[in-house]
């Protein structure tokens, strides 16, 4: 059984059709990259998988670990082991990073029937993961993302991912806006998470990230559909020729 199976997925927002029949299969241990121009539906796909309710599903099916993902709430899909790193992480003043992450981890542990962790057990775990991402310990007690720089926010997303240890990690344009040092740190964090029982889906606009995280498969999303799939070499080809190169072919492919 595949970890994630997306079949003919259609989604819209405010009568604006964005996903127009996406098919994708991700197996455990695989790293997939979804690339595409702005407005192609990449982020929508990530958000739909994380169950953002502002999108309406008009057709199709998604199975996550064999279960109907589209009938799940955001917290249910998270507890089932799906994690999305946000393109624009939200600032939450008044709640510390450590408090928030422990609440999240305990919600997931409770769902799995595991014992909840108290602060004494949790802190060393969190500090470990923060070290991997070169994050200073003072971020522990700072409010979630409040006043963080763009790079700090993205690194904080990866820290969360490392703590929550999802079965499927989706990174929604985590690379955009990062300088090269931050990009390297983020990539290192993601590479450390690669495991035979974990799937990773990288949503990105640029090929740059794929120099550091080499995917097993690359898919090109244009106008709400995957128009081309291939190995890592496809990303290089896209970089060289631009998305325009994939688009006309898409048009031919439809006919």
């Amino acid at each position, binding site marked *: 059984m595949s970890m994630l199976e997306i079949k003919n997925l259609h989604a819209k927002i405010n009568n604006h059709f964005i996903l127009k029949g996406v098919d994708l299969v991700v197996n455990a241990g695989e790293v997939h990259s979804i690339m595409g121009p702005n407005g192609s539906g990449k982020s929508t796909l990530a958000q739909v998988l994380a169950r953002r*309710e502002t999108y309406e599903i008009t057709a199709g099916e998604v199975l996550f670990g064999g279960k109907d993902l589209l009938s799940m709430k*955001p917290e249910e899909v998270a507890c089932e082991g799906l994690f999305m790193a946000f393109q624009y992480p939200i600032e939450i*003043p*008044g709640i510390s990073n450590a408090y928030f*992450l422990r609440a999240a981890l305990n919600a*997931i542990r409770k769902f799995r029937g595991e014992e909840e962790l108290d602060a004494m057990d949790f802190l060393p775990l969190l500090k470990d993961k923060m070290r991997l991402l070169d994050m200073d310990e003072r971020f522990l007690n700072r409010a979630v993302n409040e006043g963080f720089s763009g790079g700090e926010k993205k690194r904080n997303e990866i820290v*969360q991912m490392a703590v929550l240890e999802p079965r499927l990690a989706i990174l929604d344009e985590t690379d955009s806006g990062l300088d090269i040092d931050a990009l390297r740190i983020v990539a290192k964090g993601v590479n450390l998470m690669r495991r035979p029982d974990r799937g990773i889906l990288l949503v990105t606009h640029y090929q740059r990230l794929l120099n550091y995280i080499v995917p097993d498969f690359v898919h090109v999303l244009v106008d709400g559909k995957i128009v081309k799939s291939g190995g890592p070499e496809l990303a290089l080809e896209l970089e060289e020729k631009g998305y325009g190169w994939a688009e006309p072919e898409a048009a031919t492919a439809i006919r």
Partner: protein
Amino acid sequence: MAIATTEPLRGYPEAFFELDSRALRQPAWLRELRERGFARFRDVGFPTTRNEDWRFTNVNAIAQTAFQPAPAQSVTFAALEPFLIPGAACHLVFVNGQYAARLSRIAGLPAGVEAGSLGEAIQNNRKPAESHLGRYLNVERDAFCALNTALLEDGGYVYLPRRADVEAPICLLFVSLPGTIPSMAHPRTLIVAEDEAQASIVEQYISLGAGEVFFSNSATELVAGEGAVVSHYLVERQDRNAFKISTLRSEQARSANVTSHSILLGGALVRNNVHPVLAGEGSECLINGLFIAAGKQHIDNYMLVEHARPHSSSRQFYNGILDGHSRGVFHGRIIVHKDAQKTDAKQTNRNLLLSDDAQIDTKPQLEIYADDVKCTHGATIGQVEENALFYLRSRGISEGAARRLLLLAFANECLERMKCPVMRAYLEGVIQAWLPATSTGAPPEAGEIERRWEEAG
């Protein structure tokens, strides 16, 4: 003094004279003070919504009820334990407005620091009581302050000599015992901090047991000498039938720093007046408040900050969470007098409405008579942010828990401004325990009296 008893005054003249006959040994200055308060109250009566300061709060339910002075009564120490603050320097307990020495724990205060009953301080001719009591509270402006003064009998008394430094908070616990008839108490508190003294003083109001409506009308005068640093905490946790009017009037000398924290959770009809006067050059005040209302609660926050001398600064941060059919009011008035050049005043009121039936009126009011000042104000009214909610849920936290966490975060903004770790920890626990009852939208206890207040109002 000849008094014609009129209908709107209900039992107040009787209460005034009864107290007069009981307090035979009251000094002349006190009698004069009380008479002035009573005369003023008799002249003006309770305010109506035609009074701009009371535009959003109808106190008809208080005016229409015949309250009797709450009798002196006792409670067990065990009943108080849930309300004692771990790590406090001392606990002074007042039952129905009267000091209860047997229940109080005052050992361990630094030498020279006095904390106890105001009634006793007056009896014992304590000099600070005579020189400060009634000098600051404005009985002309506010009928409730006039009434409190008319019926002044007991309350808290805290005296901090020069350079005294009390690290742990001095806690005053005011217990209301609702009786078989509507009853009232008018606790009066005096806090005198001499030059460079430092302390935190807590006034906590609670109810024990069930009964008829209780009206608590408290007033506190806080005098901060040169360079004194005083934090005042008001914690309102009475039952959902209580009427609560509280006034804090602080007078700040040169470079004095006063902080007022208000956490308002309980009560049916609550009005909290905070009135600092920055009377000395370079004095500073912070007014920090959080009110959480549900059911049919009405919580009115009336701030009046007066800048009287140059280079003083004031900060007001007030957060409100309103659920059910509750109503909140924030009235933030700042007066910058002619001499108060280089004033720096800032006011922020943020509100979360959790239901379509909850309501907030927020009103800034700046009166500036100096020409070189910096005054800003801002208010927001909103709902729980959907993006933040999705973010928390996407990490596995259930919708209910996520909403609660966001409310807690909103409340935490207020707790983070408290410097005293003992109070921060205590109030964090109080608020965490309070929130679930609120976020369901249903009041935990909706009594008959609450309904009657609605009809009367």
